[in-house]
């Protein structure tokens, strides 16, 4: 008899412990609401009928609509580092990734303001619109040169990413820059540049860029109609130039940059070859990565290093923004 009592009391104790756990807790999914009126009609009726004002006990046989849990979005991978499409003034053999936006604004002590906006196309090309302050003009021989600005250009570049075809393959890009027609002091000018450039990382901290450019420019005025491709005035050698640059990463977020490029110079009052000439331009400076999406660049630019005129040197500062937002939006829409 004593054994029966012990077994019975143990069973009651176990049931008493287990019974509350058979109902879901108020914080658990599927738990009935604790306030009257927010449950089912049946529950509300029971509560009203009891007259006690307290919440009615849940009816486990009534289906309570349960919202399916929202699918959890996997965290987005960190966007990879972008290899910039320009060193300081010369193009690189790297392209922007697909749908990545790039915007660079620069200001220099010569009063020049330039802007460059691009978008990556399909990981194999990019398109951009820019205003450049590199095109210069002088009225007569020996006069001071002035920047022609804004000088609006369009850019299209296409190519193959570094190590895409084989392990040590440099990035290879065919680029084309062409300006809209610009009226300055009564003279209409246009420029165009075809480039082939290759870029290669050498180790983890250095990259080198080498390229060749095929230039053209035209100048039309009251009595002037000439161009760089006019063989009566210029040889083909006047159109072809080599350019290049070097990047060194001494610190994880900082780079030292140097490049040598070319820019056209018009002379309205000159004759023959002097009307349109390409001037070598040397730039050096640093790039600091403020954030993944923002870089600051500053340095020195000598518009005509061939004349060794350091008084003409300009100190420039520029800020570059890159954004993956469009890429993410496109990926999400897909």
């Amino acid at each position, binding site marked *: 008899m004593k054994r029966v009592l012990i077994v019975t009391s143990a069973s009651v104790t176990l049931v008493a412990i287990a019974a509350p756990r058979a109902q879901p807790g108020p914080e658990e999914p599927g738990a009935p609401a604790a306030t009257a009126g927010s449950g089912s009609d049946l529950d509300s009726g029971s509560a009203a009928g009891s007259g006690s004002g307290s919440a009615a006990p849940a009816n486990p046989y009534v289906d309570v609509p349960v919202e399916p849990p929202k699918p959890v979005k996997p965290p987005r991978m960190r966007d990879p580092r972008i290899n910039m499409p320009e060193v300081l003034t010369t193009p690189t053999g790297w392209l922007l990734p697909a749908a990545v936006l790039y915007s660079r604004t620069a200001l220099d002590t010569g009063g020049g303001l330039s802007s460059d906006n691009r978008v990556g196309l399909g990981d194999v090309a990019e398109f951009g619109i820019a205003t450049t302050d590199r095109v210069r003009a002088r009225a007569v021989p020996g006069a001071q040169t002035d920047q022609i600005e804004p000088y609006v250009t369009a*850019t299209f570049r*296409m190519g193959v990413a570094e190590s895409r075809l084989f392990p040590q393959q440099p990035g290879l890009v065919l680029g084309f820059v062409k300006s809209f027609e610009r009226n300055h002091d009564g003279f209409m000018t246009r420029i165009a540049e075809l480039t082939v450039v290759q870029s290669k990382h050498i180790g983890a901290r250095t990259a080198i860029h080498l390229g060749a450019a095929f230039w053209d420019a035209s100048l039309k005025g009251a009595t002037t109609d000439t161009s760089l*491709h006019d063989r009566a005035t210029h040889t083909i050698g006047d159109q072809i130039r080599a350019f290049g640059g070097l990047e060194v990463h001494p610190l994880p977020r900082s780079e030292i940059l140097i490049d040598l490029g070319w820019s056209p110079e018009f002379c309205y009052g000159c004759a023959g070859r002097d009307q349109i000439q390409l001037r070598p331009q040397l730039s050096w400076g640093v790039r600091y990565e403020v954030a993944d999406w923002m870089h600051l660049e500053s340095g020195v630019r000598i518009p005509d290093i061939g004349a060794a005129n350091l008084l003409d040197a300009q100190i420039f500062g520029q800020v570059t923004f890159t954004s993956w937002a469009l890429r993410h939006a496109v990926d999400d829409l897909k």
Partner: protein
Amino acid sequence: MRSVALLGILAASTAAADDRQPDATLGHIFRGPFGSSRLFSMPTADVIGAYIISISGDGSLLQDPGRLTSAAVIAIGFGDLAQLEYRETAAISVTGVDAPVPAAGVQLKLPLPEGAYVPALGVALRVGVARREQFAATSVDESVHDFYAVSRERLGALVLHGGLRISSAHIVLGGDRMFSLQRTLYLPTAGAEIVMNREARLVGEATAAPEFHWRGAMVPGAPEDPTIGYGLLARLGVRWRLFPSVTLDATLGYQLAESPAQGDGPRDVVSAWDIRLGAEVFVPWGALACRAAGAFCD
């Protein structure tokens, strides 16, 4: 009457397109896949497919400063082997610009079994509509009728295209001067695609195109009669499938004119080279009509 004719054309589309279901979602409908029937300006041996409309366009502000030079194609799939289209076919006008000449036509894919080293073949017929330009008191009408035969061969990631365009080009002067000239031209075309990734292809094409010359367009009162020759139009660029139903085109274009007065060849970068941007949008009208009105369902 026009709507009856349109319905007749639509109903005559014999082949079934995928996913023409009343309960298909828009996302499902626009997921494709869609196939293009062109490279940039060169037609290929493919058609866009039944119950689909393709709308294409591109333009450049750089070729002729201050003026948008543009081209467009509207194609409607007519069964799995044909498409009707309206396009502005490539020709070089008397002003030296690659000014497209309007044309309407049909493009057919020959129903041959495809296999390794067996190219796909297609033909296209285009009837040109005269494009009029006015120079002082003289009007110039240019039109081009074309017959195209093109082939396509896939070699892994490389796709080769080749063809012959037989063009009947007309130029007519009116107004204060009467003149008419017609010439038949045999113009080769070639193109290549390299599939770079799932969404992008590098595409190059070189096509010979009719070229109209008339010195009077440049020098008012010039006594010379118009002539018809041919020029080379080449484009190199990317076709990027931004979404399955939207493809963006960006190209570097080159135009070699036969006339020395219209450009100085490849070295004339400021005149003969340009950048063109464009897009092709596919509209699966059959699936949309099925979803909206229950018509044309599979």
